[in-house]
């Protein structure tokens, strides 16, 4: 057994389980008796998490988005799903310029800024599709959310694809949400693990998953306390924290529906040239994730 586990700490977008798990030192306590040290490393970027796993610097990521996970696997870097974390449907939204309330139809011909190949992109495509349009009907501009937010505030774009706090902030600045992921796509955040670690230390992984699920349970039982913790860590108000938590829909066991959305995620990525090789998405989900 290893003497330490390197695990990514990902607090955005408002990953309450991760925040609580770290603050409570639940993993540290769990593995103390085995003399295994827990190394939290802060990496927000999914792509960078996958790179760190490939380099052997990272074993587990407490939260990874499925797009990054699929792209890594498509490129031959095996990263597997250990358990579910959240289905943050309202955490991803298309937000219009301050002023008028836009509808999806109004996006036609407009400038929309956001990160390519992510859930946010997927939301936009799905939203347009729902009104019989395609991505070619808008002028899509590639930018990461914090820059898209700046562009929206500076009124240099008509709409932006934003997540979590950025949605709240832009709403406060008078920008109105056009549509969220709710009902269009099923965004998934999962706990991910490198194939190597999953194979060699499956017992340890099981215990990590167990702690994670206990944390999820604790959050629902001590909601106010958890929100306060999250608000402090993320630097948002209690109200906003509550909102973000409600939007996030924390869960743990991966369902058939989730497997289905993994498939459609992959289809989306392939369609948009974001993935070269198709993989069997069912095999990416470890058995423990489903029990």
């Amino acid at each position, binding site marked *: 057994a290893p003497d330490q586990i390197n695990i990514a700490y990902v607090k955005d977008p408002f990953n309450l389980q991760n925040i609580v798990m770290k603050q409570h030192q639940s993993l540290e306590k769990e593995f103390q008796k085995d003399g295994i040290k827990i190394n939290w490393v802060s990496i927000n970027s999914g*792509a960078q998490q996958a790179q760190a796993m490939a*380099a052997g610097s990272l074993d587990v990521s407490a939260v990874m988005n499925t797009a990054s996970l699929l*792209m890594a696997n498509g*490129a031959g*870097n095996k990263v597997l799903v250990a358990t579910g974390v959240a289905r943050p449907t309202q955490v991803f939204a298309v937000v219009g310029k301050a002023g008028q309330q836009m509808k999806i139809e109004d996006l036609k011909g407009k400038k929309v800024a956001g990160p390519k190949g992510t859930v946010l992109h997927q939301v936009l495509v799905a939203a347009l599709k729902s009104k019989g349009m395609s991505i070619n009907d808008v002028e899509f501009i590639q930018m990461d959310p914090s*820059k898209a*937010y*700046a*562009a929206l505030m500076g009124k*240099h774009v008509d709409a932006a694809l934003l997540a979590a706090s950025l949605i709240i902030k832009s709403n406060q600045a008078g920008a109105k949400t056009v549509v969220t992921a709710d009902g269009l796509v099923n965004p998934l955040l999962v706990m991910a693990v490198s194939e190597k670690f999953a194979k060699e230390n499956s017992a340890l992984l099981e215990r990590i998953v167990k702690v994670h699920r206990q944390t999820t349970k604790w959050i629902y039982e001590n909601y106010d306390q958890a929100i306060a913790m999250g608000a402090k860590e993320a630097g948002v108000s209690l109200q906003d924290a509550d909102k973000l938590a409600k939007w996030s829909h924390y869960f743990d066991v991966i369902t058939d529906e989730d497997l289905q959305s993994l498939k459609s995620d992959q289809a989306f990525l392939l369609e948009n040239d974001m993935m070269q090789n198709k993989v069997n998405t069912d095999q990416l989900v470890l058995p423990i994730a489903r029990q």
Partner: protein
Amino acid sequence: MPVALFVLWGLASAFSWVNPYLLPSPGSVYSAFIELVKDGTLFDHVGASLGRAFGGYLAAACFALPMGYFFAKYESLHVQSRLVLESLRMIPPLSLIPLLILWLGIGELAKLTIVLLASFFPIYLNAYSGFKQLDYRYGELAKTLNLNTFEKIRHIEFPGALPAVFTGLRLGFGYSWRALVSAELIAASSGLGYLISDASEMARTDQVFVGILMIAVLGIIGDTLFQRAIRKVAPWSVK
């Protein structure tokens, strides 16, 4: 030495010493290169990046050289503006991107500004210290020869400061290339920096390497041309 590194790379890939996901084999980089050349996107990327790198660089040089000159000459100007300039020198341009977007939009201007911020200071500071360190004896000579400001710059100050100015221009050129990735994080849809960050996001390490190598090769070509030019214009400055 470059050859040795290349061979090492080939061997490392051939024997899978390293994870191909992070360090792709020369072969796969080559085929990614061919692929990008074939569909013509590589040329778009190169074209866009060349424009930005040179545009920002030229703008930086146009501001930095006169500023270096005047600040060396009129120390009070230098003292006056020191705080602002030094702040700008220390602040990471990446952190300014949101503000740049706010003020300059998401067009070329913001990108050019990032390049400018990256390459301005070596040019400015080297020019400043070059002009500052001028041998005062030649200044006396200029006075007795009744040279006017322009003649003084042309015959005495510029040639005297040239070695330092040249080092600054070379450094600035390098930084203007380096800044491409940051600059093209702002709403770019082409450019080598965009290619690199986009491909990196999509785990296309082979394309990332094509981007990196293109930047290195173009940069070296630029630097070489640059050194040639200076050798032509000012043979005395490179002994």
